[in-house]
């Protein structure tokens, strides 16, 4: 729901790293539990990056899935499709195994020529 804030944060960081060159790709790492909806973020990105060095750039999102671990048998499995938070192998109670709340810019890729 706050994808616009996130898009503005990406813009500020990407422009800071641009050194006056046009940005081609911004690589993001986004956890499943970071509360970010990709399509919405894409639309916000188009809006905030317009007429900047980031216009027409691509957001390359690496998605980090959330995992559960069974308290009984210790096996791990994805949260997705296990929303009842129970182990699909033994039916035991599960708990979250990772944070999956990553939300950061991994890298930016610029064109070599100074922006024209």
């Amino acid at each position, binding site marked *: *729901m*706050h994808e616009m*804030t*996130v898009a503005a*944060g*990406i813009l*500020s*960081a990407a422009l800071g*790293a641009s050194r006056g*060159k046009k940005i*081609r790709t911004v690589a*993001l790492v986004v956890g499943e*539990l*970071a*509360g970010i909806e990709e399509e919405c973020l894409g639309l916000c990105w188009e809006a905030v990056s317009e007429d900047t060095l980031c216009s027409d750039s691509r957001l390359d999102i690496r998605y980090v899935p*959330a995992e*559960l671990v069974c308290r009984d048998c210790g096996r791990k499995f994805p*949260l997705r499709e296990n*929303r*009842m*938070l129970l182990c699909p192998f033994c039916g035991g*109670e*599960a*708990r*979250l195994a990772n944070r999956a*709340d990553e*939300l*950061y*810019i*991994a*890298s*930016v*890729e*610029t*064109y*070599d020529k100074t922006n024209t």
Partner: protein
Amino acid sequence: MTKQILKKDILGENTLRAEENRRMFADAGLFVVNVCGGPGAGKTTLISSLCSLLGPAVPVGVVEGDVALDIDTERLRDAGIKAVQINTMGGCHLTALQVCRGVSDLGMENGIVFIENIGNLVCPASFDLGEACRIVVTGVPEGADKPYKYITMFRSAHIAVLSKNDLSGAFGFDTEYFERGLRAVMPVCEWYKTSRDAATAKPLADRLLGARAEWSAGE
């Protein structure tokens, strides 16, 4: 083409401000509690109850976050509770910067400040305000599935509160299912039941006094 590795936190500006808040609150001796929950969960009622229980022992104040209006602030002031209002004008969460201003406006030292976040179980989870303690409130009428649906929020909280417990029978609330969800997502499962009667919040008020004492000792 040139690739630069950045590894930069997108909400980093808020996180930095939250760390500044934490230092500011520590210097002022303010134990700050961020109260989150959906609209109508009973956040204001809980805060009001806690203030009436804690008020005699320790100075208390409230920073009220709302999308618009100051209904809750008036309600608290009518009950004799010191409160300031922040309106986000549509914003879905409070930010550390807004809270810095709000807490400064309270002009308090050595006490407990409750921040009532915007009624929303999604966005406030991702914004550190520099608080020492985060409470998530959900009410019996909202249903027992909330920890399953709003994992990020419940995971980020130190304490969960189930409000409106006097309605539990009428709503057929499945406490066992609710608690299992809390156990799965909260790092340490700690939760309290409250109702409209302020006395039901006494165990939580005592817990906050204990947490404040621990926090003071650690600072």
